[in-house]
C-alpha cells in the first residue's frame, strides 16, 4: 500500500508524462495541495518508489535554464500505475457515504 505522499508523486508524474522530473513534480504537488514540498522529501520518496519498482528514473540532457545541469526524468511503471489505482480505489471506497464525499458529489445527507 502506498503512502499519501508517494501517491501524490505518482499521480503528478503520471499527469506530467514525458515532462516529469524533480522540479516539475514538486511544482505540481505544491499547486495541487497548496503546501510546500521539500526537495529532500521529494527525492527521498522518489528513491523509495524506484526501489519498489513503481517508477523508473534516468538522467536527461543538461539545459541552460538549470545552469547546464541535467534533469532526473521520472516514468511511472505499470507496477506503479497498479499501486496508484489500488490506493485511489481504497480511498474512494473508504470515503463513500461520508459527509465530505457526499457534499462534493451533491448527494444530500
Amino acid at each position, binding site marked *: 500500500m502506498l503512502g499519501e505522499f508517494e501517491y501524490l508523486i505518482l499521480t503528478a508524474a503520471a499527469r506530467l508524462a514525458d515532462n516529469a*522530473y*524533480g*522540479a516539475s513534480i*514538486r*511544482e505540481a504537488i505544491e499547486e495541487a495541495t497548496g503546501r510546500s514540498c*521539500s*526537495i*529532500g*522529501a521529494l*527525492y*527521498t520518496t522518489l*528513491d523509495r518508489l524506484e526501489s519498489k519498482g513503481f517508477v523508473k528514473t534516468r*538522467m536527461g540532457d*543538461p*539545459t541552460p*535554464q*538549470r*545552469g547546464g*545541469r*541535467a*534533469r*532526473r526524468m521520472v516514468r511511472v511503471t505499470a507496477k506503479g500505475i497498479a499501486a496508484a489505482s489500488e490506493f485511489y480505489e481504497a480511498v474512494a471506497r473508504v470515503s463513500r457515504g461520508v459527509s465530505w464525499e457526499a457534499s462534493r458529489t451533491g448527494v444530500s445527507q
Partner: protein
Amino acid sequence: MNQICWWLADRFAAWLAPAAREAVLGDLVECGATGSDALRSVLGLALRRQLAVWAHPRAWLGLACLAAPFSVLLFAAAKRTADHTAPYVWLYGNNWSAAYVTNPAFRRDFLHDLALILLAYLALASWAWIAGFAMAWASRGAVYFNVALFSLTLLLGGMLGMPQYLERAAPTGLAADNDAVFAMAFYRVLFPLLIRAVFVIVPVICGVRSGIRAEGSRPRPRLLPWIAAAGALLALWRYPDSLVYSEQDGLWRLLGLQIVLFAPAIWLTAGSHLARRLRGVHL
C-alpha cells in the same frame, strides 16, 4: 550572503551521489531558489539520505564490527608504535652529527634502526588502509559517518583518557625507561598525534577511497575484505606487539607478518584496477 549560501550548498551537495547532486542543484536553479533555500534543501536531503542508510544492517555492522574496534585498537597500536619509535627518533634526530656517518658501526646500527622504524610505520599504515577499505566495503553510505567517528576517536581519544585505560589493559612500560625523551612535550604529546594522523588517518582515508572505487568493479572473492579486516583485528588484538620489532623476533618475522596481512589489500586494489581497465576496454 546569497552567494555564500549557494557556495555552501554546492559544497555540501558533494555528500550526494553525482547524479543526485546534478538533479537537485539543477532543480534549485530552475525554481529560482535563494541561497538559504538551496542550502536548507541540500542539507535536508543529505540528512535524509544519511538516515536512510542507517535503516540497513550493513551500516550498523560497519560501525560496530569495524569502525569502533579498529579505532580503539589502532589507537593502541599507534600509541605503542609512537612510544617505541620516539626514543630512536630522538636519538638520531636530536643528536645528529655528520661526523657519525663516517663510523661504520654507526652506519650499520642506523640502517638497522631505520628499517625497523619504517617497518613499524608501514605495518600501522597497512592495517589502517585495510580498516578504511573494509569500512567502505561494508557500507558506502555510512562510511563518511564511520570515518568521522573513527578520526575523532583517534584525534580526541587522548583527551578522553583513552591512553590511561589502554595503559592499564596493556602496559608498555616504556615511559619509565625513556623519561628523558618523554619529558619533552613534543615526544609526549605532538609525536603520537602526528603518528596517528599520518600513519592511521591518512591511510584509512586512502583505503576508503580504494574501497569505494572497488565497490563498483565487484572484485572477487566478495568476502576478502571481511577476511582481511578480521585478520587485522585479530592481529591487533591478540598480538599488539607484533608491530614493534624486538631482538628475539627479528625483522623477518615483522616483514613476513606485514606481507601476509597486506596481501589481501594488494589483491583487492589490483583486482579493482584490472576490472575497471577491462570494463573500459569493453565500453
